[in-house]
């Protein structure tokens, strides 16, 4: 009882102080709005569907990017995991590429694809590729060598070997990489939208700020935190399902 009271004490105190300070004009409404106004903005944003549409656009890009990253990452990861030599000689190129922060590709993809889903999805895919690739390589390396020996004894073809032995054995670990990637996807998508791409939650956020709808801006921010919490919870849930 005590601990639940303590857990809401700080946010409640901040919100109350904020509300009163704003109500009596101790602070500039143009900068920090007012909790009640923010709540009204959030409710009307949810009611007219603009929040949900923006959320859909952002999540669509995340799924698009994650799918590409998963396919490319797992396929490349299996190949590099099974062939240590290939992994070794491509390491400098891959490390060099990986060192470039994902968002630095925004100007390039804009040049190649223009605004819209593909450019954003590809940047997300690039960012999410690395955790998936690295965990896949590690997962393939960690497969019980005896399993591969059995495959050789049974004279399985490489394709059958991958399908029947490698993929089932590495799956739990790859999902750990996917979990990290899912977290990246949301961050990168919102960043790209704030920076250049005129769609989704990030764009809603920056436009609200630029048109001085500060209440709407904070409402977007709160909504984004909620989305982040939901994504986190879903990922955790999926994780538990796999572990059990």
């Amino acid at each position, binding site marked *: 009882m005590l601990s639940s009271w303590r857990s809401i004490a700080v946010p409640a105190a901040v919100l109350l102080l904020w509300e009163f300070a704003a109500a009596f004009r101790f602070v500039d409404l143009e900068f920090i709005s007012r909790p009640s106004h923010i709540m009204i903005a959030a409710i009307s944003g949810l009611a007219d569907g603009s929040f949900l549409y923006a959320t859909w656009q952002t999540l669509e890009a995340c799924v698009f990017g994650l799918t590409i990253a998963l396919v490319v990452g797992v396929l490349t990861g299996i190949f590099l995991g099974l062939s240590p*030599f290939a992994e070794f*000689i*491509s390491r400098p190129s891959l490390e060099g590429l990986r060192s470039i922060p994902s968002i630095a590709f925004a*100007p390039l993809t804009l040049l190649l694809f223009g605004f819209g889903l593909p450019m954003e999805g590809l940047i997300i895919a690039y960012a999410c590729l690395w955790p998936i690739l690295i965990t896949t390589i590690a997962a393939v390396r960690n497969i019980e060598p005896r399993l591969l020996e059995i495959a050789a004894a049974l004279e399985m073809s490489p394709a059958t070997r991958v399908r029947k032995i490698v993929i089932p054995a590495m799956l739990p670990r790859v999902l750990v990489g996917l979990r990290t990637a899912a977290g990246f996807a949301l961050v990168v998508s919102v960043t790209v939208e704030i*920076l250049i791409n005129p769609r989704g939650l990030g764009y809603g956020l920056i436009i609200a700020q630029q048109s001085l709808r500060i209440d709407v801006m904070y409402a977007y*921010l709160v909504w984004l935190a909620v989305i*982040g*919490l939901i994504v986190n919870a879903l990922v955790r849930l999926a994780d538990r399902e796999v572990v059990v």
Partner: protein
Amino acid sequence: MIRATCRALAAILFTLLVFVVWQAAIDSGLVNRIFVAAPLSAIDVIAERAANGTLWTTTAATAQRLLAGWIAAVGIAMLLGTAVGNSRAAHQYLSPTLEFFRPLPASAVIPVAVLFFGLTTKMSTFVIAFGALWPVLLSAIHGFVSVPRELREVASTLEMGRLRYIFTIAIPSASVDIMAGLRISLSLALILTVVTEMQASLPGLGYELFLAQRTYRSADLYAGLMTLGVFGFLINQALLLTERRLMRWKLA
């Protein structure tokens, strides 16, 4: 020994091969020059920038921005993390609020920061510090909470004060977790540095990239990407080396 040399040679050859194929694709006209620059022309741009000094000034500007934000983040995260990780009351009061902010994408605070600070260096420092804070904070809390029971018991038998416990037992014990957090937060800080430079037209490597795209100079764009790649690689290596040096006692 000979095998190792052969493997290293093969790695170098493969890397060169990547560049040769890339260059050939452009020379043969297979790929449009406007979108994809040849590696040689990108390297030319880098050499030119190194010669006239702009390479060093922009890199220094980015490094300075990155470090200012990252160091602020690490400082705040260590203070908060030590408090929340070692005190039950602080944990109960603060952790729900922290849990709410944690999943918020770091870049989402850019509009708020722009509102308060304008398109200034203060804004970029704030955004970088806010974003890079969470990995360190969370790993520090995790590290402090999971200090082994025996060590806690040693501290209470020796009647150590709280500060002494924190410095002699808790921090060394949590250092592995904290280091992992530091590494993640550094790469996050680099991303946010580039983002804020692009958003606010602040001098640095990120802004150079943006400028190159707006003026359709693809050689500059690829030169910028290469520079950022090398820069990112070097700062990560620097942190890894520091980590290895600091953690030597743990490995031995």
